[in-house]
């Protein structure tokens, strides 16, 4: 398979732009190493977020639509946050299937909706990179680091979207290809508690601690997450006795590429990841 992406349009979303800057920076860095440039869509806004979607679906659709109309349709729109990907994907589906809403939105933005705009999740890009053989020089790089792959709710979708591609197992597959050692464990798809972490912290803590304890019991040395919000919840709601380092997928990929990870990224973690990295690499 030939690989042709050298430039993609990019939607970072609020988490990657703020609390998870290390996720954003490591993702951009990693793709740069493969000559894939990202062009942030100009003046993007919140994707529609779970809070908006929860109580005001009309607003969620309006917010997502502006982003869809801002994105040039010449190249795929890369999205790293699973939440943003779901919200923008749902909006695209609504605009494609509901003529009345589409007409209203088109009238608002004064131009036609490009139904063929491709929304590409970071996982999809990785799968293509892997198929194209871009990782073949990176075998063994993760030195058997034992990894618990954590997807949270990212693989779950509403019924009307359940025929879209699913990337179950992609973290494990990629980590294995790079020389990591993914463990078997029972919590890879258990929700992190999302916004209940703020409004009902006891509930989120219970879930987070089950997940973290599960990872420790499985023999993993660290957790690798696909979602910036999961990453934050796992770090902030974890009891001291259940602490295990949590990496963004993009950080581990960069580590595999270079044998090091930027101190700037690691310093932003609330659970210090340096000791586990020092067992194999000089940080």
């Amino acid at each position: 398979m030939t690989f042709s992406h050298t430039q993609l349009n990019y939607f970072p979303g609020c988490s990657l732009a703020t609390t998870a800057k290390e996720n954003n920076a490591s993702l951009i860095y990693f793709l740069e190493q493969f000559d894939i440039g990202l062009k942030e869509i100009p003046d993007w806004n919140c994707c529609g977020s779970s809070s908006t979607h929860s109580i005001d679906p009309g607003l969620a659709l309006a917010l997502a639509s502006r982003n869809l109309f801002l994105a040039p349709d010449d190249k795929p729109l890369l999205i790293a946050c699973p939440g943003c990907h779901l919200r923008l994907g749902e909006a695209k589906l609504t605009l494609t299937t509901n003529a009345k809403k589409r007409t209203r939105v088109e009238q608002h933005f004064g131009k036609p909706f490009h139904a063929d705009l491709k929304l590409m999740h970071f996982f999809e890009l990785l799968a293509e990179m892997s198929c194209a053989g871009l990782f073949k020089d990176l075998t063994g790089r993760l030195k058997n680091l034992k990894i618990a792959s954590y997807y949270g709710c990212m693989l779950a979708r509403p019924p009307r979207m359940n025929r879209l591609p699913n990337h179950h197992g992609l973290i494990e597959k990629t980590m294995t290809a790079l020389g990591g050692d993914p463990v078997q464990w029972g919590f890879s798809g258990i929700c992190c508690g999302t916004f209940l972490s703020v409004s009902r912290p006891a509930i989120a803590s219970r879930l987070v601690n089950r997940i973290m304890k599960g990872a420790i019991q499985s023999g993993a040395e660290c957790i690798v997450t696909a979602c910036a919000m999961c990453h934050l919840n796992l770090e902030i709601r974890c009891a001291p006795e259940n602490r295990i380092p949590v990496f963004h997928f993009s950080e581990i990929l960069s580590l595999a590429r270079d044998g090091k990870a930027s101190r700037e990224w690691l310093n932003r973690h609330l659970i210090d990841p340096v000791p586990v990295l020092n067992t194999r690499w000089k940080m």
Partner: protein
Amino acid sequence: MDAMILAPESNGKFAGMVEEMSRSNLSRCWHCLCCSGGCPFAQDMDILPNRVIRMVQLGMKQQVLASSAIWLCVGCNTCSMECPNAVDMAAVMDVLRRMAVQENVKIAEPGVLSFHQKVIDSISRYGRTHKLEIMMRYKLSEKDFFSDMDLGLKMLSKRKLDLMPSKVKDRQQVQDLFKLAKDLS
């Protein structure tokens, strides 16, 4: 198990509205409980997700709209992965929350609603979410000044919380989206 369910209104009007708004066919549900078994929040809910469906079918509008279940549902779609009949539970819960707000029902989890509103306020100000301000405003409205104080300081010291918001430049466009939203719901 509770005692007998007394159905106040079984002419199907409420169920019909929920079905239409959620674009989900509730008669498909055979009450296998797979959704409730898979839901990470089932133990915190006053009514299990499959029971929410049943009570909607039975027209028990007030009880459903006043439940904590609709607010503790985070829309993670885990239940949809379990459901053999493609019932869109998250969409049903979305509709029920919206109805509860519109009909001024007493909200079982006011803190959850208040948090969502703080997020929306932040989006209306900046077009994006400003986490620090959302947290501060939420804590103020809950009159909860001390829990998570250590955590907040730690997040600030790790620069996880930005003091200044990341913003959309064109604020008028953001305000226009709030107007557009009214025609889309």
